[in-house]
């Protein structure tokens, strides 16, 4: 049985903070990929250390019930991305609502490469920013809805209803297609 992430974070308390770097070797790649998908490789390379330093500084907030640190790390990465977009002059939503800013530019350019751009872009464009964020965490980061709830700091029911809405749109637009495979941990079975 490999050591769970919560044990690694636990070991990295005041007595042995350098143990935290093991968490980086476990999930550094995944966090980097999260950033690349949303903001491109160059920005991802620059932002990666900011995410991890914030994670290190905030490790006391880690919930020991989480055996997998990725949802927590993606939540931190999202905050770093939002701050980055704010700095680079992206428009902010006027109300004090913690809504995700759009990752549309990068998603757009990734769609270009597939030749299926028009089709998928049309469907993604009908989703709200929040619904799309949940869908991308499930399809790209392979999170379960309960992990999405941790990453976004929203209730499980909200995560599920957002995913429900997003997948409903896909169901509607791709009725000739067969299935939506969404994965989750075997432990939830």
């Amino acid at each position, binding site marked *: 049985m490999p050591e769970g992430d919560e044990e690694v974070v636990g070991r990295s308390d005041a007595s042995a903070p*350098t143990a935290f770097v093991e968490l980086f070797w476990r999930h550094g790649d995944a966090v980097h990929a999260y950033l690349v998908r949303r903001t491109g490789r160059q920005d991802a390379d620059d932002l990666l250390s900011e995410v991890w330093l914030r994670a290190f500084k905030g490790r006391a907030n880690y*919930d020991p019930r989480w055996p997998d640190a990725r949802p927590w790390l993606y939540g931190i990465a999202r905050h770093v991305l939002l701050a980055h977009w704010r700095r680079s002059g992206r428009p902010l939503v006027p109300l004090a609502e913690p809504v995700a800013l759009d990752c549309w530019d990068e998603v757009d350019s990734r769609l270009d*490469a597939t030749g299926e751009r028009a089709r998928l872009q049309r469907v993604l464009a009908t989703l709200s*920013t929040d619904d799309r964020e949940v869908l991308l965490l499930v399809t790209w980061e392979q999170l379960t*809805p309960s992990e999405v709830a941790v990453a976004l700091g929203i209730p499980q029911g909200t995560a599920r209803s957002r995913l429900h809405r997003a997948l409903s749109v*896909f169901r509607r637009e791709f009725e000739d297609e067969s299935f939506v495979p969404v994965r989750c941990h075997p432990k939830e079975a």
Partner: protein
Amino acid sequence: MNAIELLEQIGVVEPADPEVLDRTAEAVLAVAATEARHGEKATSENGAELFSMRRGVELVRASNSASNKRLRGNRSRGYWLTRVAAVVIVAGAAGGVSTLVQPGSPGGPSPAAAAVLRHLADVAAAQPTPSAPGPGQYLYVDSENAYTDSAFDQPPNGKGSYTVLLPQHRQIWIRPDGSGRLFETFGQPIFLSAQDHADWVAAGSPTISNSPSDDTFGPGGLSARNLSNLPTDPSALAALIASRKIEGGPPGSAEDFTQIGDLLRETDASPALRSALYQVAAGLPGVVDLGAVLDHSGRSGIGLAEVSHGEQFELIFDPQTSALIGEQDTVVGPGVQEPVGTVVGWATYIQSTVVDSTTSTGPGGSAVPLSPSATLAR
């Protein structure tokens, strides 16, 4: 390839440059080492220490790639339970469209629904304005609701796919800054059909997790909305909602209706704001009047709904106060795996009040102590 697979494919990226990873690891190590030096186990600050840690990093990394593989291997095995609502895409479009209600004409609002909503707006405007949460206070909302969860065996289109409704009792305490507490307990899963139950048995009757959760949140942890800045003039509010500046989303009146629901659900919307929201809804094409309905707990109310993606999303209002007392989602068209008429979600709002602490349920209410296992989630 279906759309989700296509989306997954787009998400595949080249791994990070090892140099970038090394640089980041060094940055984390440097900060951690600084903290270690200032901690109880103060050690020397010379370069040799950093050098040895650097070597340590490489060793950890080498041993860890193997354990990573093991972890990933585990993830891809066994029975996969999705926490996804009942939206499994069914091969082939279903036949005739059957709806429970006649949607309003696309060009304008349904006259009946508009009249009901204008009446509700008048009722709302006549309600006394309750005090908003003061500094340190919380909005407390108590509700019962149920969501659908689907599970399927691997491969996904194999046998063993089933859907359940998971009822929950939800108590939320929330401050305007998003801090607060969320306490949820779950009931027994409800199978949506005998076939669902049979498929669950065929899958080996796996446990469907429903252990309670109790979390407290720091600022920003819960989705809070500051509604005090919203206009209560219906035209201005309609324009703001349609511009998607309150909440992001696609264009269209169905989304407008959804966002109106979002502004009513677990919020402290004032009577004036609710009145304005109902007037905005009265101008939306596609909103239908369901007349007198019962919510899931049997309370009578006025049902108004919007139909999209084969489901009817219904909001239920108290005729006396115009408050939102319940919701119900019903299958009305093809494309959803459940038959037309199946209720695939509901909510009943039991109480909404301002309280002084995250264990209080208001005057006369019994306290809800934090569970021993409660943690600070964020």
